[in-house]
């Protein structure tokens, strides 16, 4: 841990990420209220420290009287789930495709690299929005829409690293003793190129969380009544004149989580890959 995360800032960031994960995992235990519990008497109730605030609803309530803190805690489930699952799927596919393209070369490389070039032709959010528009909203569709493009990122990294690794002596040696292509790719090359893959994956989780929030903000992602940070910000937009807290707190949660992931992953990158300094 010490070696991976030097510096107080990086440790604080890692602890923040951990706190979000724990909150999400134990949401039913730690959330003070049911996130879907509406009560119009509490409509747009301000945070506790303001006039008419109430400490049992510390961050206030939204337009339907739902507790904002509880919804933020439950919203963390959606953000973290989608961030991790999309990057996980994308990394598995991207590693396979990148290894195949970089090691086998030839037509396999041409097909995979061609597909990568085409997918890179789409601005990310446009691609996801286009797919979500046709597939309809929902968590599963969002995972698919993001993963369809996300695998390109690890694929390019792995392909590049594999191209370099296949010329090294240890791969040469493995080939000489008659190891099969599959054994060389998974047993020899993969363990040696794992650190850039991990570094890229951690940074990408942060980006996918922002993309998920953007889709949900546009109304194309997670559907009500499920709490998601992006849709909570969207809900509050209609009330910015008289209830700033409805949009502000969920957005703050996104910023805090994404910022912490970015800071922590930068420290991980510095520790794993000294080549990338500066």
């Amino acid at each position, binding site marked *: 841990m010490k070696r991976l995360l030097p510096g107080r800032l990086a440790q604080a960031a890692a602890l923040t990420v951990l706190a979000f994960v724990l909150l999400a995992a134990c949401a039913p235990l730690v959330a003070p209220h049911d996130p879907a519990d509406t009560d119009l008497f509490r409509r747009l109730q301000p945070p506790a420290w303001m006039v008419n605030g109430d400490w049992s609803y510390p961050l206030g309530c939204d337009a339907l009287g739902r507790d904002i803190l509880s919804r933020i805690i439950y919203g963390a489930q959606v953000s973290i789930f989608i961030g991790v699952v999309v990057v996980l799927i994308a990394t598995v596919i991207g590693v396979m495709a990148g290894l195949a393209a970089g090691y086998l070369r030839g037509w396999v490389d041409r097909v995979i690299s*061609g*597909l990568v*070039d*085409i*997918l890179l*032709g*789409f*601005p*990310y*959010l*446009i*691609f996801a*929005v*286009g*797919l*979500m*528009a*046709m*597939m*309809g909203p929902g968590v599963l569709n969002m995972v698919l829409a993001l993963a369809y493009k996300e695998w390109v990122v690890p694929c390019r990294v792995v392909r590049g690293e594999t191209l370099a690794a296949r010329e090294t002596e240890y791969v040469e040696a493995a080939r000489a003793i008659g190891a099969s292509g599959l054994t060389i790719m998974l047993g020899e090359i993969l363990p040696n190129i794992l650190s850039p893959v991990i570094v890229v994956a951690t940074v990408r989780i*942060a980006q996918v969380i*922002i993309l998920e*929030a*953007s889709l949900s*903000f*546009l*109304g*194309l992602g997670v559907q009500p009544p499920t709490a998601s940070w*992006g849709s909570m*910000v*969207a809900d*509050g*937009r209609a009330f*910015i*004149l008289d209830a*700033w807290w409805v*949009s*502000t707190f*969920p*957005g703050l949660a*996104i*910023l805090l989580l*994404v*910022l912490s992931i*970015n*800071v922590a992953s*930068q420290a991980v990158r510095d520790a794993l890959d000294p080549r990338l300094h*500066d």
Partner: protein
Amino acid sequence: MSPSLLLHRLLQLLPVLLGVTVIVFGMMSLTPGDPAETMLANQNATPAQIATLRHDMGLDRSLPVRFASFLTHAVQGDFGQSLFHHRPVAAVIAERLPATVELSAAALLFSLLLAIPLGVIAAVHRGGLLDRLATVGSLFGVSLPGFWFGILLLLVFAVDFRLLPVSGAIDYASQPPTITGFLILDSLLALRLDSLGNALAHLLLPAITLGLPMAAILMRVTRASMLEVLRQDYITFAEAKGLSRARILGLHALKNALLPTITVAAIETGSLLGGNMVVETVFGWPGLGRLVVESIFARNYPLVQAAVLLYALTYVLVNFCADLLYTVLNPRVRM
């Protein structure tokens, strides 16, 4: 650059353009569900009406035939009728395009004007207070959800201080005569300073919101490449010649340090184009991004399809041009 290299690059571009078109076509045609049925889902349509729409959209033909028809029409700029507006899709898009182009250009300008000086300053004073501030700032910049930051800016500058307008691209009373469709250009052409001021006031917050994440990334790229360049021998040589610091930085270092910035700026136009949808929604900006979002909810699929294709083609071409520019500017890759 030699004409044969240019031709070679153009030929490489073709499969990508074709592939992008296939994917946009596939988005609508291969995803589960019948577009004709979903489009009429809320309108109590009879099976006969659905069949008619299917026929009008060509959905009753085979996939290759449909793709061929889509491609031949798309090449001519014909994307069919916008179901909602009862006008050609291309005309509806063309009407909304200037606002989006203006916003994106302003965001690009903002991010370059912010990122390049900050990146240079951070690199020159490496490790100093300004460098650390800029680094922290850029971390915030890439972590900010744009839609939320836009709402915060609105809260502060439009609601609390009432300095800037809340939404739209221009007030009705300040509308300049339509010449090009670009508000700022039209204001200048018609010599309407009130319109120009009004349009700029509307443009400020959306452009900052859209440009900030890009500025954060470009700042880091400029800083890193500037550090790289400052280590080179020719900078030491220029210093030894006794050239002034400003002359070395401005003339010798910056010119080469900006090469990576151009490449990354081109790649990041993707986030500008995608960010359009979000930022235009927040600020009620009458551009293409908001039109796409509205069209999705109106199930106006032909328009969504055409817009996604337009965005993707723009992105591919911007990167192509940046690639050419890079080749022209950097003698080392000009082979």
